Each structure stands twice: as structure tokens, then as C-alpha cells.
């Protein structure tokens, strides 16, 4: 049987003007940027007499990165309100007293937000397929990109839902979700750059780079996505480069299958987060969501 919460969410969101605007803005931005990029490629061809393959490839990666960035911006915005929105609207208690379990409620919310994202992804396919005009990219590559986007979307979505379950207000949940994704994506990379800086200035001894610390980057979805795209356009082996630079001693299975391992880990973490969210949501199980959270939540919400 289909999930009632999922059905309701779809019905409600598709009705709003906001949703239409979202699709329009998303594809609008995507179209403008890819057209600009394509225009650049064609324009340069006037000087070279033929369309440079690398320029088309560049359009492809640009569009893919934009799509990734949009996902990272949109998914938290959608999911952060999922549970806290029901709290603010005072409808959560009614859901909890129904026969739907906490897990179904959480999954319904996740599926609904992924559905939104999926509509966005599919609606952007025409724009993405610009790149096929000049060839060079296989359908298989595109499918891989979509899968990676979906997994990363789920990952970001589970972070959003977890924070939404903890927070009483959507604003709080949104800030926490964006905050933690920023720390995850830029923070982890920032540390690398900082270490590199220390190294190049001979402060401290970093001949082994960050060693095993490199594996923490598996949780950085942006890095993995970069590796995927760069791998497809064949410019360089992104992870090997990264590794020789920051962790020259590390090698082996994980490094070789970085993308797959990272995506699997993201799925695993998503499942854990969602289960945790369901556990917290269930009023009869939530003996005490760790005191720390409670206090942090109160300090944030300040409406006690």
C-alpha cells in the first residue's frame, strides 16, 4: 500500500504556486547557464573552425555541477520543514495517534521530498541533453550522474529530516541542516587546504599528509561528485591526485573505488539518520533524546 503521508505531501506541494515557480526558476537558471556555456563553446569554434571537444565537455560538467549545487540548496529547504512543519501546524499529534508508525511517517516525508527533487531532475533532462548535440558523453554517464544525485539528495534529505525531527521550528532545522552540510562540504576541504598550507610553509611535519584522515572525505558528497564528473570527462583522476597530494601513503581498495564506497556510505548514513529520526519521533520510545540536544533545542527555539 502506498504511504499516506507521501500521498498527502505530493498532493499539497504540487498544488502550490511555489512548486511551479521552483521548477521554473531551477530550469531557468540551468538553461541560461548551459546556454551561455554552450554559446562560449560555439563562439570559440569560430576561431578554430570546429567545435572543440573540451569546450562541450566543459558545458556538461558545468551543468552537472550546477545541478548538484541546486540539489544541495533545495533538498535541505524542502526536508527541514518536513516534521517541524507538522509541529508548527499542530498536526503532528494527529499523525502520531493514527496507526502510522514513526518509520512510515519519516519515510513518507523522505519520499515526498525526493519526489520533488526527482521531478526537478527529470524536468532538467532536456537542458542536460544539450550536451548530446555534439556527442562525447554517453547516456550511461548521465544515468550515473542522476544516481549519484539521487543518493546525495537522500543523504542531504536525511540530514534535513533528522534536524527537523529534533527542532521545534522549521527555521532552526533549516539553519542546522545548511550549517552541517556546509561544514561537511567546505569544512573538510578547508582542513586539507590548511594542512597543505602548513606543509608548504614547513610548519610541522606533514610528509605523510593527513594519512588515514583522508577517509573522512568519503563523507563529503561534493568531493565524490567532483570525482565522478572529472572521471567521466577524463580530465584527470581526481582522487589519485588528491591522494598523492594529501595522503601519499594511502592506497588500496577504498582509494580505487572511492566513488562507489562514498555513495554506499552515504546510503548507510542516510538509513541510520532516518532510523534515529523515527526513534526520536516515536513519543513512547523517546525516553530522553540526549539532554544535550534538548538544551540546545531550547536555547535555539527560546519559546519556553
Amino acid at each position, binding site marked *: *500500500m502506498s504511504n*499516506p*503521508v507521501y*500521498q*498527502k505531501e505530493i*498532493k*499539497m506541494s504540487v*498544488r*502550490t504556486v511555489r512548486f511551479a515557480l521552483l521548477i521554473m526558476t531551477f530550469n531557468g537558471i540551468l538553461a541560461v547557464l548551459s546556454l551561455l556555456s554552450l554559446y562560449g563553446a560555439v563562439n570559440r569554434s569560430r576561431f578554430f573552425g570546429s567545435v572543440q571537444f573540451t569546450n562541450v565537455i566543459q558545458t556538461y560538467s558545468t551543468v552537472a555541477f550546477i545541478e548538484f549545487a541546486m540539489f544541495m540548496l533545495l533538498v535541505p529547504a524542502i526536508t527541514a520543514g518536513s516534521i517541524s512543519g507538522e509541529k*508548527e*501546524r*499542530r*498536526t503532528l*499529534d*494527529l*499523525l*502520531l*495517534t*493514527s*496507526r*502510522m508508525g514513526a518509520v512510515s511517517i519519516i519515510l513518507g516525508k523522505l519520499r515526498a521530498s525526493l519526489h520533488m527533487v526527482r521531478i526537478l531532475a527529470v524536468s532538467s533532462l532536456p537542458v542536460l541533453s544539450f550536451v548530446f548535440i555534439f556527442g562525447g558523453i554517453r547516456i550511461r554517464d548521465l544515468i550515473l550522474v542522476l544516481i549519484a544525485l539521487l543518493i546525495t539528495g537522500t543523504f542531504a534529505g536525511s540530514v534535513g529530516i533528522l534536524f527537523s525531527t529534533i527542532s521545534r521550528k522549521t527555521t532552526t532545522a533549516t539553519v542546522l541542516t545548511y550549517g552541517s552540510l556546509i561544514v561537511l562540504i567546505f569544512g573538510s576541504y578547508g582542513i586539507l587546504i590548511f594542512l597543505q598550507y602548513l606543509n608548504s610553509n614547513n610548519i610541522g611535519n606533514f610528509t605523510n599528509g593527513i594519512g588515514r584522515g583522508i577517509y573522512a572525505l568519503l563523507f563529503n558528497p561534493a568531493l565524490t561528485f567532483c570525482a565522478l564528473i572529472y572521471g567521466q570527462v577524463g580530465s584527470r583522476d581526481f582522487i589519485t591526485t588528491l591522494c598523492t597530494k594529501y595522503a601519499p601513503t594511502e592506497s588500496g581498495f577504498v582509494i580505487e573505488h572511492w566513488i562507489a564506497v562514498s555513495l554506499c556510505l552515504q546510503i548507510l548514513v542516510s538509513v541510520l539518520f532516518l532510523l534515529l529520526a523515527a526513534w526520536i519521533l516515536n*513519543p*513512547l520510545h*523517546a*525516553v530522553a533524546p540526549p539532554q544535550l540536544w534538548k538544551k540546545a533545542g531550547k536555547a535555539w527555539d527560546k519559546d519556553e
Partner: protein
Amino acid sequence: MLKIENLVKNYGKCRALNGLSMEVGEGELFGFIGPNGAGKTTTIKIMTGLLRADSGNVYLDGMDALKDADKLKQKIGYVPDFFGVYDNLKAIEYMEFYASTYGLVGREVTERCYELMELMGLEGRGEVYVDELSRGMQQRLCLARALIHKPDLLILDEPSSGLDPRSRFEMKTILKELCRKGTTILISSHILSELAEMCSSIGIINKGELLQQGSIEEIVSAVNISNPILVRVCDDQKKTLHFLRSNAMVQSLAIDGQEFQFTFAGSAKEEAELLHKMIDSGIRVLSFGRKRDNLETIFMQLTKEGEES
């Protein structure tokens, strides 16, 4: 039907429920009355599985309700004190959504939704967006929603707060009708007069404890039994005074003109005996009886005692 035993709930240091026990019989319209902060909502949330009790038991039809939450949810319909609505759902979609959360879908379910809405006086409103309905209509829609899975016990938390008198009256009529059809109803309120005439029995709660429970007459007489006896006589003050003083069961005697007021430590039979003897000894008794408080006064007294302690 519903039996609550020694329910205790603490919010941090604040003790919201302090060993609350009560019983609601099958087919009753039970009024759960207490001042604000007495612990009504807390009790209701525990009954509906929205809150964990620190200790105590809740039995529904002999079944341990706190252990078997899923069965409990099937048997209870709940209208919370504050509830919200989804702004871009139509009334019928709202009903169908909640039906589906109980695993109910299909044509018959839609028909049942319409039937319930009609029962609540919402006929012809199916296609209206929920947020466009008046507050009273939303309340009745929420009541219709709570009945969707044919619960045995309907729980309403302060259903009349925020309603105008007319909506309140309609609500009462609907509830009485539901009760007549066999649904057991528990309704909480902080206003006694509102429930007094419609409820078959009431429980008075204060500071997380149940102070009195029973039918309205039972509560009134239970409280009045400890009230002082008032005797009015015709001219025989001295004789009466002498007579009453000589009886050991008469205590704290007070005189006001021809009126004697005292507390009596004996049984009802001894009380009747006293009157008999008074008349036998030649005292001309005009009236003999207890001071009778109305329910409102009793409620005020009971809940005031709680406040002072």
C-alpha cells in the same frame, strides 16, 4: 471500559500527575474537569500514546493500553486541545488522508467520510479548502476525523475553547447524540457548568490527583454529607441548646437567632434518631437539614483546597 491506575508523570522537577486513578464506564459521557494546569492534557496525552507515563497503568477493555499502543490507537479517537489543519487540502481530502493513516482507503471509505461530515453538519462542504472553514466547522471536521476508524472511546481535550456559544451548543448536541449511539466519550474542560448538564458522570482533577468521581448527584451528596446540619426551631432556643449540648455527637455548635448549625459525627440513622428525639422532647422544629452546596461551589472548594496545600 477505561481504567487508570496511579498515573505519575514528571516534567523535569514539575510533577504534573501525582498518582491519578480513575475509571470510565462503557457508554458514559464522562466529564474530566479541573482548573488550568491540573494535568488534564497530560493524562489525555498518556492515554492516546503521545506521552510516556513515569509509572502507572492504563487499561482499555481490560487490555494494558501502555504496552499495546497499536491496538490502543485503533480503539481511541482523539480531538486535541489545539489542532491545526493543512491549508491546501479540501475538507474531503483531509478526511480521506486521515482515513488512510488508519489503513482505510477506497470508495466505501469516501462514502463514510461524507456520512460523518453530514453527521457533523458539514454537508456540502467537501470541496471547500479546510482553512476556509470557520473555527467551529474545523472543530467539527476534526471530530469527524476522530471518528473515522469507528473508535470505542472518543477523547476530546477542551473542545469548546475558542468556540462561540452557538458552536458550543451544536457541539454538545452532537456529542450527546454520539453517546446515545453507543460511543463512550471522555471530555475535558476547565469550566464545570459547561459539562454538568450533559455528562453522565464527572471526575474532578486538581494538581495531578483525582479529587472526586461519580455521577453529579453522587458527588454533590458525597461532599454535602460532611457539611454542617442546619436546624431552625420555633422559639425554644434554650431548650434546643440544652438538648443539643447533651448529645456527644453534636460538635462545633453555633447559634444564629433561631438557627442552629453544627457538625454531626454520627451515621445517617443516628441523624434521623436525633431529629426524632428532638421532636419527642417537645422542641418545635421548623426545618432540619444539611446545607446544600451546588456543584459549582463544590468544584471551587475542592480545587481551592488543592491550591493551598
